[in-house]
């Protein structure tokens, strides 16, 4: 199976701090890969490096076999990569509709996708004219996801979607992401192991700026010692 995203040995600095010291990640076509690891390990920075928001100083990032490192953020996004950042960076002053309109990459994107999006997140339909800031946490997360689905993205980078949400909402999100699988590939950052386990086929462990372990989720689940060692959860 070919990979849609190949991140190879990237190094990223924030100011003088060497945050990523060689991270390698790949996402198979149509698959879901999860980045696991403790807080501050470099998971979010990995996503931001891919998006060009924190460009890596060395290493390579291939999307569809073509290098994207060094491109500007908007050019990277235009290739078909959707970013759903942590803390659901929706625009609070814009209405739900405007949030979605903003994500259009060509005229008619939203019209084409409206039905699909409302089917996935029915709540958004009745909230469509409310300012994003008036939405609850779960609704904001759905909006952030929906926003990434407006254009024809082939890869989604989703950062901590379940953070701070009620279990019922998390289940809804899991269902939504599962329904996307196959058409869209996903690189997920998730601290909630239950969620990660349900969604991902592959994992990469990020620790102190490195990526020491990778494999299939299936193998990881059957190896409690490994989980304990890297994630501190059983």
């Amino acid at each position, binding site marked *: 199976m070919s990979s849609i995203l190949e991140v190879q040995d990237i190094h990223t600095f924030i100011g003088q701090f060497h945050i990523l010291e060689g991270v390698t990640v790949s996402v198979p076509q149509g698959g879901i890969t999860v980045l696991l690891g403790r807080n501050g390990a470099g998971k979010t920075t990995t996503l931001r490096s891919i998006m060009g*928001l924190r460009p890596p100083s060395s290493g390579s990032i291939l999307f569809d076999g073509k290098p994207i490192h060094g491109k*500007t*953020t908007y050019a990277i*996004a235009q290739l078909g990569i959707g970013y759903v950042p942590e803390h659901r*960076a929706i625009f609070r*002053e*814009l209405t739900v509709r405007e949030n979605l309109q*903003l994500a259009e*990459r060509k005229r008619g994107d939203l019209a084409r996708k409206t039905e699909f999006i409302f089917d996935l997140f029915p709540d958004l339909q009745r909230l469509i004219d409310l300012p994003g800031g008036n939405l609850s946490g779960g609704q904001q997360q759905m909006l952030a996801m929906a926003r990434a689905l407006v254009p024809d993205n082939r890869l989604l980078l989703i950062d901590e979607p379940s953070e701070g949400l009620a279990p019922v909402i998390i289940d809804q999100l899991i269902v939504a992401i599962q329904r996307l699988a196959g058409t869209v590939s996903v690189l997920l950052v998730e601290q909630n192991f239950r969620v990660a386990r349900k969604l991902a086929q592959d994992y990469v462990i990020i620790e102190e700026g490195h990526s020491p372990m990778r494999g299939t989720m299936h193998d990881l689940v059957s190896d409690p010692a490994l989980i304990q060692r890297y994630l501190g959860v059983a």
Partner: protein
Amino acid sequence: MVRRRASLLAIIGIMVFLIGVALLNSNSAGDFGITMLSGLFQGMLLFLVASGLSIVFGLMDVLNLAQGSYFMLGAYVAYDVQHAGGVVDLISVIPDPNLRFVVAVVAAVAVGSLLGYVLERGLLRSLYSRPIFQLVLTFGVSLVALELIKVIWTTTPYSWTELFGVRESFFELFGQRFSTYRLFVVGMGIALIVAIALLLQRTRIGIIIRAGVEDREMVQALGINVRAVFTLVFTLGCGVAALGGSIAAPFLGASTTLGNVFLLQAIAVVVLGGMGSYAGTAVGSLLVGIAITVAQDTAIGTAFTALPSITPMLLLVLVLLIRPSGLFGNSR
């Protein structure tokens, strides 16, 4: 909501106070009308400088201290085009003064926009990673602009002598003669307030601008070239300031103090209204404009002749002491 109400009360309070003082100063309804019309006139001119300042600051975090210079430049260009002599002399080419004024305004806007584009693309762009230096740079640009204007047009102030249609006509109300031109400027200002509001609310560019004020990074991550939007907004902001200068010139003439005077008043407006808030800028412009005119009327014949020039700053200090983030703003 509570904050909104406090702001509203503050605005109403200031307005009532200003109108009260204006009423005390005036002998007739006509007097009062003239004060209010002059206040609106001043407020609209201020809005033309302040709107660019505020939107650019909200979107790009750049406080363009050269904004006043673009206003001043607009006034000089318009003056130069309208009158004989100077850099261009169009008297024989376009003998009709009305038409020449239209050309003068268009020329001012074109020059202002062009130089705005040059400033953003040529100078500011290289400094987005060093925001403090952007502020310093625009300050430097305002100094250079002033000196260049002195070189081109000397330091002698020009007063507008080439009259044309609207500029010469008056209408009567409450037994007082009102200048039609002031009304024209007020109308133009209102039209622009509405036009910019529509642009912000109804167009894709407007959505991008409002989103960019909140979170530039996320706008980029959605595949939008924010830098291109910066250039556009900055260029428009400078063009609108130049427009302000050009339509102010028939009343205020062109002089080397215009830039600083309007920059400082516009800064007062923007801070008072809340940086980056469009509604705040519109309301702030009116408040400051009327306050200045009322202060002018009050100061006549007293020892406080400096009152009108320091009024915007006094108002600013007052508002900042009560509401540090401005009337509509979130300044932290």
